[in-house]
């Protein structure tokens, strides 16, 4: 989020795909999407290109649609890592 804020301050719009949205909120993200994923698989299940593509596509859509700094949009994709 520190780096995200630096890029945003330089004038480039950013969005972060986060597994831990409360942490991202606390650190002052401008834009964020939050699928239901564990840390380490923020863009979805490994070797599941459909899920990954949908998370990335929805995130890009939110990059241009979010109109309020700090907004976090939940995404309806779920992956649970088996550990």
């Amino acid at each position, binding site marked *: *989020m*520190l*780096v*995200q*804020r*630096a*890029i*945003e*301050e*330089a*004038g*480039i*719009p*950013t*969005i*972060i*795909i*986060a*597994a*831990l*949205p409360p*942490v*991202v*909120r*606390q*650190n*002052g*993200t*401008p834009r*964020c999407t939050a699928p239901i994923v*564990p*840390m*380490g*698989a*923020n*863009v*979805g*299940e*490994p*070797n599941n*290109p459909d899920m*990954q*593509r949908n*998370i*990335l*596509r929805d*995130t*890009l*859509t939110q*990059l*241009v649609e979010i109109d309020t*700094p*700090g907004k976090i949009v939940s995404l309806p994709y779920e992956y649970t*890592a088996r*550990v």
Partner: protein
Amino acid sequence: MDLTVVKGLQSEVYVPITPPPVWAPITKPLNEMVIALVTAAGVHLKSDKRFNLSGDTTYRIIPNDTDSHDLMVSHGGYDNSDVNKDINCMFPIDRLKELAKEGFIKGIALSHIGFMGGGGDVKAFVEKTGPEIANILKEEGVDGVVMTGG
């Protein structure tokens, strides 16, 4: 009713403070935007120097024409087992190429950037690493950035 019994008391418990908002407005539609990936997940080329797992504020350039099988992760702050199976679950370079091919975005930046986030030397990230990464993206004419981390 006045609920204040003693005036001027302050909490001794530290409470987190959210920094003021930052905001760069969108100026064009997605299909006219060049997009770059920036990840805090410790992604870099296998041929590149690994991050120091006990703390590292440096970053690595990842050329867009890199084969995703030539990428790896060094990051001490999360379970690497998913990203070791498929780098795209933290660094969706193959998915971004597919979206560019179908015209969902205009194009992809020549370079992406990986660093090892999750704490460490906050001052260095704010004052040096962050602005340096932003500068690279500016020079490459990037219109928007998708990040992973947190």
